[in-house]
């Protein structure tokens, strides 16, 4: 059960020292209740969350392991027990007991150590995974935090100092990696570089526009061909008025050709709504289930991580693709991700001692040290 820790209480799990700007427990989302008007929530950048989970061996677990989603300034966490941890998403500045450690790599954290996500050097949201996942109470089949309803996650809210997050049972890989019988998984460098920089044009073109692919519809008949062309030719800036529910964009107003009111209908993750002022709103993970503004297009799922990592001031440009193309790109992204995870698994399957490094665990004055000796 999630609860707040009492002073002097012996702790297992993970204690929040500081909550950061907006850190929430999320998994893939709460599906099956949209017909009741309940938002799905869930991680904004599903690819980064999946990488973080795979780094700590949560890909072995039967159920969807929950992660922490940070927003620009992350939390500081004190571990009450040994665990594997990993941070992915954008380019976060990660510290273990004040010493810089690498994102996109598994980290051995010992009981008593503190993991801190200081800031994002690129992107907006980082995902913190721990071996076994964050095991807060599941509400209606999901641990995702629904901030509007105060449901799921840790007491339905963002994390704050003093919260204690329980951890689930870790898989086989995590146990091996913690005792030095398996190496630490790392996301290959080339993949990280592509992943963090994707969607940007070459740097020498001045201001970088993120290229976002989208599928036309469902209400394209509310707009003239000309205003659709203007929409794809324009550059839109992510406004300050952007959150997990949606991003309000600023740029060329999209004019409606049909003035008839739309009868409220369903909204998808990525729906591009056009309100009366013509400034597009991209509906994201916490979007309401239905709405009455016409929706010009929907961001392709393959590019939702790019949307999630965009921050106020970033510029976006939309390109329309067919639904078949969007699905092909998604399958391709999925296959690449599976192959990267499989490479990570193989690379770390054996202990580092077999690959030219030796590992010891020393206990000095009750403190545990992991020592690795590398033979060049």
């Amino acid at each position: 059960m999630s609860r707040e820790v009492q002073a002097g209480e012996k702790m297992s799990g993970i204690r929040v020292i500081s909550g950061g700007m907006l850190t929430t427990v999320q998994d893939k989302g709460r599906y099956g209740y949209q017909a009741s008007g309940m938002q799905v929530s869930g991680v904004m950048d599903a690819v980064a969350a999946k990488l973080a989970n795979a780094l700590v061996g949560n890909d072995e677990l039967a159920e969807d392991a929950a992660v922490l989603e940070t927003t620009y300034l992350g939390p500081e966490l004190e571990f009450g027990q040994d665990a594997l941890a990993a941070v992915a998403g954008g380019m976060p500045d990660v510290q273990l007991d004040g010493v810089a450690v690498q994102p996109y790599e598994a980290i051995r954290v010992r009981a008593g150590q503190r993991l801190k996500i200081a800031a994002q050097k690129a992107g907006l949201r980082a995902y913190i995974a721990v071996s076994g996942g964050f095991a807060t109470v599941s509400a209606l089949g999901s641990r995702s935090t629904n901030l509007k309803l105060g449901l799921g996650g840790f007491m339905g809210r963002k994390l704050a100092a003093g919260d204690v997050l329980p951890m689930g049972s870790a898989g086989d890989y995590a146990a091996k990696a913690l005792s030095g019988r398996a190496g630490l998984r790392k996301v290959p460098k080339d993949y990280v570089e592509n992943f963090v920089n994707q969607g940007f044009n070459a740097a020498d073109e001045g201001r970088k526009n993120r290229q976002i692919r989208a599928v036309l519809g469902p209400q394209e008949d509310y707009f003239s061909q000309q205003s659709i062309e203007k929409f794809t030719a324009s550059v839109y800036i992510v406004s300050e008025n952007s959150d997990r529910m949606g991003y309000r964009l600023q740029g060329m107003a999209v004019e409606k050709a049909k003035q008839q009111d739309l009868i409220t209908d369903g909204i998808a993750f990525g729906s591009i709504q056009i309100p009366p002022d013509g400034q597009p709103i991209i509906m994201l993970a916490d979007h309401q289930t239905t709405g009455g503004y016409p929706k010009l297009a929907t961001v392709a799922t393959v590019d939702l991580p790019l949307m999630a990592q965009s921050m106020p001031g970033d510029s976006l440009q939309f390109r329309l693709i067919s639904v078949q193309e969007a699905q092909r790109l998604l399958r391709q992204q999925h296959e690449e991700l599976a192959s990267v995870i499989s490479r990570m698994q193989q690379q770390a399957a054996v202990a580092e001692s077999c690959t030219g490094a030796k590992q010891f665990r020393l206990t000095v004055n009750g403190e545990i040290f992991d020592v690795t000796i590398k033979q060049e």
Partner: protein
Amino acid sequence: MTGEEVPAGVRFLLLGDSALSVEFGQEISPAVNRRVTALRRCIDEAVKVGRLTGIVETVPTYCSLMIVYDPLALGYDELREKLAAIIDGMKLADEGKRQVVEIPVVYGGEYGPDLEEVADAHGMTAEEVIRLHSAPEYPVYMLGFVAGFPYLGGMDERLATPRKKSPRLKIAAGSVGIAGGQTGIYSVESPGGWQIIGRTPLKLYDADSENPVLLSAGCYVKFKPVLEAEFKAMMK
């Protein structure tokens, strides 16, 4: 099973690569909405017997059914084909099996601070407003906006009242109100501009329940006036 064949004129609307909407018309009417709930039932059935895989969930609205699916398990072209076959063979349920949910409401006073204002606006007494409001069986066309909030049809036109000029910051869960030609029930506490005429002790949204939401699209709502004492007894 008796029923009528579903006519042509159905539109498939794209909602990106992981959802689509099947639209049965562009008007708010029980006839169009019945097709939406019928398709939802047919899809549920097809999923149950394994004739359709890759469906994540379906979301009924006034005129269309949004279908959320997993494109890694089910491609758009295949889904479209399967849906067309389902719609072709779709039968509408017998109207005899109407599910009516009775909603007890204490009208007026602190629970319905705008009852007198609504009555005055139409030159009626508060009793007449209550009688007109509690007479019909209101169809629940869809849920949306917030968890458990029903979009109801069928309010007596004589009760149509504009929204409040300045919205209230806090309206209690269970509040029953009127906005234009619509009536509704606040399922969770929220700000809003509806004219509040009463309140129900029933929870339309209850996070602690396995079925967190009281109403569902396709059912009907009937308001039953109760006294404050009954309301308080039911709140316990």
